[in-house]
């Protein structure tokens, strides 16, 4: 009886898994197939394979939208911003996790209040600030904005995690002669690696996919990021979907590679975070 139920359950789960696989893969396969079609074929035969492989969609994505340079720009911004963010957050969160004084609580709450600030509500003062500082078309300014905007979530995640790390580890490190920086670098960071991976991936995704800051503060084509590059084929009235899908395929590759490299850490971070609260 039990065996029959299990088999039935197995069939049900298999059917569901196949269905879910189809649901998950369909957008990806549609994107890849459409990247070789033109508008007419995409709309008249959306499910079919391309009648002619329109490689020119990729050529145009590479040459006209300069999507590779856009990808490189986005990767540069994302990597530098995330590295700076995690470096600053590691130091800040360690103090906030260990310090019991009231000022630390206040500082922590100030960081958390960043959650309450929708990005669009800050655009006008940010624009005035960037304009006053001459920060248009300046990656350093964008990096500061990205770090600042992602700091609240990262501080929240990392501080919460560090509070669960035993203080005996710190004390052992101090007894062995470590200073604060050494304790953070050699003791706290290794045991907090999963949460740093999670915070890093979340911030990386935000920065890599950012559109609004890039639109407002970048106007030089050589500095364009992926999100702006993807709109290169959206005309005032006519949208060329084939080159857009080709650009999407190309710009997705780095994210897929990064996720494959770090997925174990991310999953571990999420599950450990769930257990440790």
């Amino acid at each position: 009886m039990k065996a029959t139920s299990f088999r039935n359950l197995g069939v049900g789960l298999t059917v569901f898994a196949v269905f879910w696989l189809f649901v998950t893969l369909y957008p990806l396969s549609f994107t890849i197939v459409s990247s070789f079609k033109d508008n007419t074929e995409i709309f008249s035969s959306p499910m079919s394979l391309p009648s002619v492989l329109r490689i020119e969609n990729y050529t145009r994505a590479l040459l006209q939208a300069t999507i590779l340079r856009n990808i490189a720009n986005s990767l540069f911004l994302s990597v530098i911003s995330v590295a700076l963010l995690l470096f600053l957050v590691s130091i800040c969160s360690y103090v906030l996790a260990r310090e019991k004084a009231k000022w630390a609580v206040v500082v922590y709450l100030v960081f958390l209040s960043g959650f309450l600030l929708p990005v669009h509500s800050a655009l006008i003062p940010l624009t005035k600030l960037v304009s006053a500082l001459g920060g248009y078309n300046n990656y350093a300014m964008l990096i500061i904005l990205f770090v600042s905007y992602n700091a609240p979530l990262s501080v929240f995640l990392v501080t919460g995690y560090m509070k669960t790390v035993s203080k005996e580890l710190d004390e052992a490190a101090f007894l062995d002669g470590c200073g604060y920086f050494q304790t953070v670098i050699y003791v706290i960071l290794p045991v907090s690696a999963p949460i740093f991976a999670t915070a890093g991936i979340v911030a990386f995704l935000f920065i890599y996919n950012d559109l609004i800051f890039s639109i407002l503060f970048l106007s030089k084509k050589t500095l364009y990021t992926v999100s702006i590059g993807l709109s290169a084929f959206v005309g005032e009235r006519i949208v060329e979907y084939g080159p857009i899908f080709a650009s999407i395929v190309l710009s997705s590759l780095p994210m897929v590679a990064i996720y494959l490299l770090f997925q174990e850490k991310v999953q571990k971070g999420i599950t450990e975070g769930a257990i440790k609260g």
Partner: protein
Amino acid sequence: MTRISRVLAFITVVLLSALPLAASGSTDQAEEPITIRILTRWSDQSGASTAFRNRLQSFMEQNPDIIIEDLSINDESSFGEKLKVLIASGDVPEIVQNYGGAGNRIYFESDVYVDLRPYLDDDPEWAAGFVPLFGEWEFDDLPGTWGVPYELFAISLFYNRTIFEEAGLEPPETIEELMEQGEVLKSAGYIPISTGVADNFRGGHLFTNLLIKKHGPEFVERLNRGTASFEDQEVIEILTLMKTMQDEGMLGENITAVNYAADNALFGSGETAMHFDGSWFLSDGALSRIDAGVVPFPYFESAPQNRNIIMGGSAAGLALGASEDPDKLDAAIKLLKYLTSIEHFEYIRDFTGGGVYPVKLPPTDNVSSLTVEYADTFSAAEAFVGDIGNGVPLPQMVEVTRNAIQGMFAGAISPEQAASQMAREHSQADFN
């Protein structure tokens, strides 16, 4: 402090202090050329946009003392977001793509933009080059000319010659012929005139065309002045006709799920026999797949006097952002004249191989036959009328009208209810 601690502390201090310095850049621009900014939606890869950017480059080569910073972003919502933020932060670019009309009036009234009338009066040659299409930037009760036209459009009826020849039909001249031919085309397996309204402007354009062909520009003017209502029989009659066209399958299947790009693709794949559209459609790849012709949008047999009333006019124009720096203003005026000169539009026409423009261009053989045919469709125009609602002193009236039509096509409301929705909004306008 250990060595590593010192190093880390040093890096932290350097990074935190260097970033703001790097971000601030050099502000000593006193001896530098004048920099002016332009914000348009012409940053995509189409021929017209590429030609536009080429002209910006040419201007800078001819005027080394002026640098143009091109802030353009083609995506509509991104453009709108960027413009709104720049206006709100008091940092409006020196030249801005602008559609005029009631929706922009608040900006004209608050001097976000510069009144161009004195500059047009000072340069009669420049002013005389334009086709008289300033209506979107001029108001009876607000002195001034707040923009100049950059795009000219007219809605015409493109048709697939092959389908019409096979069916033994001539392209329709009247709405009555269009409806009769619809039956023939449907029985031959074609969509007569695909009108996907997932992009709501398609329904709005159909409404405008039918209303002006039936009731003329006078009725539209009465709506604009508040002496006619959207609940009048004239409006309900047209909405009912549109609903009938949908119910009879004239406009295609499931039209609320079909967007503009899909509409174009259906025409390019030979699935629909007719397609109403503006000058921008001339550069659509769909036309290269079929043997297409173009005729004026049909008129009603009962209203032949409106045969040459055309939906069209100026689409986008250019406005001048207010600047306190007189040097920047002078440079912006110089660029504005350059971008709206006859020479400029000749270059765009030659680069794209066609198109119609808001200036009096000398004739040329260097355009496609379809462009010539298209220009003929409105050569006898007696009046151009824009979107219904655009002349009503209520910024959202066009959008409300289009949404009500979309709702009607979706089956959510009847033609009468759609008219009521429009009328409710219309009654909020201040017509004094």
